Structure formats: structure tokens, C-alpha cells
């Protein structure tokens, strides 16, 4: 157990959200204005200034003088947004807000030039998921929000590898953003869901029974996973990470979702810290969450992330052998024609590997150019000199089979046997 102070962070776009979140125990409010915030589920596009932020900040401080405040500037800004960011910076000074959260790391350069007194928190949403990347951004950002793709084990490693001064936050609860597009997809449908801000459910025909949320506003289209991320059942793991803040995202849901989650995370964490040995989550507590949630509650990739593991295995295997050619024509019992892709000698240890992965030893007794000129089997073949060659037909010599040359490393592996599948 490591956590010293539990900081619960949540989003607020309205006076009501400020009030309900602080009353439910939030320590830090991320204030939003839809002109520069990507997905507040609140429409500020009709206003031309950011005075709302000062109003929200003043209200928050009147209710909870010690609460922390930041602004969420998480659009991917284009050059035409830069004057608006200037305008925002001026308003933040009036509101005495000195922390800004960004998705675009490039904004670190903007703030360095134009508002160097602002401290920044990076929430990339995607990427920035290895130690080296996070280490680089430490010089630019006071804190970083772990992306949802990083499993707990990797977060532990990153935290250990980086300096103790590093601050990390994590979304522990709420909808998972899985796509961000500037294109207003919904506006092109014949059915007129064409308001500037629109929320619909969707179902992918390839994955029936899963319902995704589509949210469109003037920044474009956002798609959410078919479940909410919920780490309510993982409080001990979260405490062990010793993060600087836990983010509860209730945007798009009734305020009761946010306030219920804030209270639950606070209560469970306090109970765990007081007595970790006897701690367990009760069915009543799970039921309380289920009563305010509309989607399944899952940990996402917090426990493990095995996406694309087969690709990594494949790349490791590729280093123990060399593909030197590919069969481009096969006339059974007569000829196979091979496109040479890498230099090799007919004297090398060779095999034919079928597209299904079956391997057959290949011995070359005679060979010909594609124009039927005999070639010496003592020659080294290369793609430049002998792009195409012909061999007598051999088993496994079907089109798209590969000609494999084994390197010395392979000698420690199992011997090749006819038809063996690797």
C-alpha cells in the first residue's frame, strides 16, 4: 500500500456540475468550454468568450476553497484555433487558473512562448505508453495521464523507472474514447440527427449486441467503447500505484453517475487504507454503481493488454531464417519458377515453405534461367542478376510458397522434416 493522499478528479462544464462534484468529494475539477474542450457534452459554441470559466472557478472556490482547478484544452488545434487559445489564456489569468490539460503535446511550445506561467498536464488519449516517451515529456509537463491502453504492470514499471518526482493520473471510471475524427459523420445521414451537438447509440454489424456511443459536436465525431472503464473492483491495485490523481469521467451521463462514483471510490479507498487485510468490495457497493451506469462496467486493459501479441512472436521468428525467393509459377511434375528476392547459393541449406507453413527440404540439382538457359549450381544467385529462375518441380512448390535459407543460428533448432509445420 502506498497512496498517501487520494485526489479525485472530475470534469465540470456547468454550475450544477461544479456543485454536485464538490459535494460528492471531488478534490480537483477540470473545467471545460466546448470551444476548446473536445467533448464536454455541453454546448458553449454560441458564446464568444470564456467568462464562464471565471464564473465556474469562483463558484467552486466559494464552495470548496481548497479545491484544485484546471482547464481542459484537449482539442487537436489547427492554426486557426491559436487566437482562441490566446483569448483563453487571458481568461485563465482572470480566473486564477494556472493549470491546463492538453491532448496535443505541441501546445507545450505554444504555452512556453505565450503563457509560460501556465503549468501543463498531458493527456494524449493514445500513444505515450512507454517509459522513453513519458520520460521525454516530463520536461514539458508537470503531470501526465496514463492512456487507457497501458496495463497495470506496465504502469508500475514506468513509475519505477522514472524519477520519483513524476506525477501520473489515470482515468479510473467512465466512458472510454476510442475514436476522434473531425468529420461530422452523423450530419450526412438522411435521418436528420443534424444538430450541432448530437448523441446516438450505434451497433456495428460485425459485432452485434454491442452498443457504442457516437457523439458529434462542431469539433467532429467521437466514438466511445461499448462499456465503461471501471476500476472500482481494483482499489488495492490503484492504491499501490500511488498516482497523483484518479479521474472519474461522467461526461455524457447524469450528474448522479459522477457523484455516485466519487463517493464510492472515496469510501472504498478509505476503507482499504484503514484496514487492507480485511478489505473487500460489497455487493451493495457494486449495485450502487450498476444503478447509475447504463453500460457494462469493465477494467478495459488495466489488468492485461494482449492486443497484437502474435505479431511480436512473428517478428522474433523472422530473424532465425531468411526468405530468399518466392514461387511465382508451378506446373506440377514439370517446373517451378522462383522470384529470387535475396542472394543465396544452391549449396545453402534450403527449404520450401508453403503458404500454410509446411516445410519441405529443397535440393537443387539443376536450374535454369527463366529463358531456359542452364545455370551452374555453384553460382550465387541474386535478385539483380537472376530475378527469375526455373527449377524442376518439387513437393511443396506451389505458387506463393517461399524459398527459405537457414542461417547458422537455426542449427540449434529442430531438424527439418518433410511436411513439418513450424
Amino acid at each position, binding site marked *: 500500500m502506498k497512496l498517501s493522499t487520494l485526489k479525485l478528479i472530475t470534469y465540470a462544464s456547468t454550475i450544477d456540475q461544479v456543485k454536485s462534484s464538490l459535494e460528492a468529494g471531488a478534490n480537483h475539477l477540470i473545467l471545460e468550454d466546448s470551444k476548446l474542450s473536445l467533448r464536454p457534452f455541453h454546448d458553449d459554441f454560441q458564446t464568444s468568450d470564456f467568462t464562464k470559466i471565471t464564473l465556474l472557478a469562483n463558484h467552486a472556490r466559494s464552495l470548496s476553497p481548497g479545491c484544485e482547478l484546471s482547464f481542459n484544452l484537449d482539442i487537436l488545434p489547427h492554426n486557426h484555433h491559436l487566437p482562441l487559445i490566446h483569448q483563453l489564456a487571458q481568461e485563465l489569468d482572470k480566473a486564477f487558473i494556472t493549470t491546463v490539460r492538453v491532448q496535443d503535446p505541441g501546445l507545450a511550445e505554444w504555452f512556453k512562448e505565450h503563457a509560460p506561467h501556465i503549468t501543463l498536464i498531458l493527456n494524449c488519449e493514445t500513444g505515450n*505508453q512507454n517509459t522513453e516517451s513519458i520520460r521525454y515529456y516530463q520536461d514539458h509537463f508537470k503531470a501526465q495521464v496514463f492512456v487507457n491502453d497501458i496495463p497495470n504492470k506496465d504502469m508500475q514499471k514506468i513509475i519505477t523507472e522514472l524519477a520519483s518526482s513524476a506525477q501520473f493520473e489515470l482515468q479510473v471510471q467512465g466512458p472510454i474514447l476510442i475514436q476522434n475524427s473531425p468529420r461530422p459523420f452523423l450530419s450526412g445521414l438522411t435521418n436528420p440527427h443534424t444538430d450541432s451537438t448530437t448523441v446516438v447509440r450505434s451497433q456495428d454489424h460485425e459485432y452485434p449486441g454491442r452498443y457504442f456511443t457516437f457523439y458529434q459536436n462542431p469539433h467532429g465525431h467521437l466514438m466511445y467503447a461499448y462499456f465503461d472503464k471501471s476500476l472500482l473492483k481494483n482499489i488495492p491495485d490503484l492504491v499501490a500505484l500511488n498516482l497523483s490523481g484518479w479521474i472519474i469521467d461522467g461526461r455524457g451521463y447524469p450528474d448522479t453517475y459522477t457523484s455516485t462514483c466519487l463517493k464510492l471510490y472515496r469510501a472504498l479507498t478509505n476503507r482499504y487504507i484503514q484496514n487492507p487485510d480485511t478489505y473487500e468490495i460489497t455487493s451493495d457497493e457494486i449495485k450502487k454503481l450498476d444503478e447509475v451506469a447504463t453500460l457494462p462496467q469493465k477494467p478495459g486493459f488495466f489488468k492485461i493488454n494482449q*492486443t497484437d501479441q502474435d505479431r511480436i512472436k512473428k517478428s522474433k521468428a523472422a530473424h532465425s531464417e*531468411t*526468405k530468399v525467393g518466392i514461387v511465382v509459377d508451378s506446373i506440377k511434375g514439370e517446373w517451378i519458377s522462383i522470384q529470387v528476392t535475396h542472394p543465396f547459393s544452391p549449396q545453402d541449406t534450403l527449404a520450401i515453405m508453403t503458404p500454410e507453413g509446411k516445410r519441405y527440404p529443397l535440393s537443387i540439382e539443376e536450374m535454369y534461367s527463366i529463358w531456359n538457359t542452364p545455370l551452374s549450381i555453384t553460382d550465387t544467385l541474386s535478385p539483380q542478376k537472376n530475378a527469375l529462375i526455373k527449377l524442376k518441380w518439387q513437393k511443396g512448390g506451389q*505458387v506463393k510458397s517461399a524459398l527459405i535459407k537457414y542461417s547458422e543460428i537455426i542449427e540449434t533448432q529442430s531438424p527439418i522434416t518433410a511436411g513439418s509445420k513450424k
Partner: protein
Amino acid sequence: MLSGGQMTNRRLPRSGGFGRSGVVKVSTLAASQHLATVRKPELLAPAGNIEKLKIAFQHGADACYVGGTVFGLRKFADNFSDSELQNAVDYANENGKKVYVVLNGYAHNSDIESLAPHLEILEKIKPHGFIISDMGVMQLAKKMTTVDLHTSTQASVTNLYGCKLWKNAGAKRVILAREVSIEDCKKIKEVLDIELEVFVHGAMCASYSGKCVISNYTAGRDSNRGGCIQSCRHKYDIIPTNPQEGPTVTSHIMNAKDLMGVSLIPQLVESGIESLKIEGRMKSNLYVANAVSTYRAAIDDYCDNRQTSFTEYENELKKVSNRHFSTGGLDHMPGTESIYYDSAEGTKGVDLIGTVKAVQGNQVIAEIKVPFYKDDLIEFVSQSGNRYQDRLISMKNMSGIPIEKTGQNCLIQFETTLPITEFDIIRKPIAI
């Protein structure tokens, strides 16, 4: 033998030969009024394998981008082994071309561990650039290699300050997000000394590239580590949250049309953007040859001859399988006109038949991908810029046996008097 008398020799208007990039003096009055010289932008082509790389170079590309076996984003492309990469770089160097290696996945720590030894190998191979989207990978590559670093479009750099950040991090070039307009590129070029690259042709992510993880959460495939299942091409039911808003609608709601920027070549050239990129490492030989030769011709004809009509080029590009076209974000933020809601199916005017693999005198050997009959009207996409139409009089299989119809995935041999060369493409117009 091809019946030369019936041959159609239609040439895309182009000039120059192999290795045409560089500074071109423009002597017309109109040109001298605003620019004494224009630098031809690099034409950058996709190469899923060594053959496509050679096709791209022979048809006019200045550079190719390729994936290695480690950490590219196109898991389902053939990708290059280390030795194939060496061959590709050697071939490029011999011909005054460049090869960029994509390392554009978002790395987890486990990926970084496998990447370090790969970088040591790549440093010896010495490609002309790495395409990188992950800041950690960039720092590792900067530390371990001397290869030029290009920030991938996957990093979704949309503004001047993103370019500054990546430049300070070590990037020589930034490949901007596909939503950035040519006008914005000009503004960046005005104040920042950095090479810019933009996509001009091919399929597009519906999302900001690198900002989509749909596959991760639906199929367990990492969109940003080469496993994208293209969920954006799927059909979706759109269900209003309030039934009074209308019935459920079914649509390919996120199916982005392909990008075609050939009509914007003048603006692209004048903007000073260094590199124009064609998407499609998983696309066919025909796609590579057709797109490269068409953009080569368009760039050359604008720079050399101030040609500003590009209808013929657009028609040529439309012949190859596509999902209809838009100009993406090159001239304005893409809207509903950039989505093909009705279907994820492609449309095309020609089928790829095959690729010329060897030529000796009048004898030609071609690799055939799609069967055709001897009497079918076929068309050669020549790397000289020509398009030849004709019918074969005779053809044989590789045992020398005359055949009336080819198989699929096989070699054939035929005679011709046409100036066909290795890496020319054979296609067949689709009967309407």
C-alpha cells in the same frame, strides 16, 4: 504477338526520365511574377515488397516508404526482411532514390525492448529516413542511429507548434495530419524551418490517424501497432437516443472516401511542401504504378510546362479500385462530402492482370494475377508514361505450351513489338 497495328499509344502528358526531381527554372512570365523557381516536391510512394518498390521507382517515384518486420503499422503488408531492406536501400542508392522505413506504431515497453536490436541493424542498412509516431521511439532512434527522423502522420500534428515540438525532439520532417490544409502548411513553412510532407492520394483513416483504437476494443487488434481491422468501413445501425428523433438508420457512416489531390498539384508545389505521399503499402502493383506514374506526370507537367488542367490525370486515377474520391483536408476540413455512406465496396474501371517480369528481345514474361483470354483487350501501363491497348495473338505457359486462357497466379510468355519493359503493368478495361 501483339498486333501492333491496333495499338493505342496514349501518353500521359509528362516529361523527363528516371530521376526527375530537383530545381526547375520556370521561364514563363506568369511564373516569374510570383516565383522564379519552383522545387519539385519529392514523390513518395508505398512499397509493400521489393517488387512494388522497383515498380514505384521505375514509374517515377523519388522515394518509397517500406515496413520492416518490426514495428510498422501494416501488419498485413508483405513487409521487408533485413536483407530485403538492404537490397531496397542498395537499389535506391544505385538509382538516386530514397527509402524510408516506417517504425510508426505506438510502442509499449515490450515493443521498445525488441526495437533496440532492430535499430542497430537498421543503422548498418542506412535507410534514408525513419517514419516515427512515438516520442519514445524517436528518442531511441535519435540515440542509436544517424538516420533522418520523420514524424509520422500517426502523431496527428495539426499545427505550427506541433511541428516545433517534433523538430526540437529531433525530427527533420513532419508528415502532417491528413486534416491539415495546404494553406496551413504554407503558414507553417513561413515561420519554421522544417520539411513538411502531406498525403495526396489513397485511402484515408476516417479519424485523426493515431487517435483511433476501435480495433483494440472490439477485436483485440491494436490499431496503432499494425492490427487495424478497419472498423470504420463497417456498417452501423444508428439508433437515436430518443425514438421521436426518427427510426434507426443503417449506414457505412465512417467510410471515408479515398483522397485524390492531383487537381491541387499547383497549390501543393507552390506551397513549398517537400514531399507528396501516396498511401497504400498493401495495395496492388497496378495501384502503385498507376498512382505513381500519374502523379509523376502531373508534377512534371505543372513544374515544367505550367499545365494546370488535371482532368485527364483524375480520370486515370479513377480507373483503379477506389472508394470514390475527395480532396480530404487539403483544401478544407473534410465534411460529409468526404464520406461514402452507401457501401464499403470499391469501384474501378480496370482490373489488374499482372506485371511484366522479364523482357528479352520481343519475348515477354509476365506474372498474371487475374485470368484472361488471349483475345481479351488488355492495356499496358508503361513506365514511360504510355498506355498501350491491344490483344495478344498467342501466349504460352512456362513449359512452352500454347494456351488460350491464363491461370491465376502464374507466369506466361508472349511476343510483342511494343516497347514493353520490366515492371510495366498489364490491366484490362472493365466492360460496361
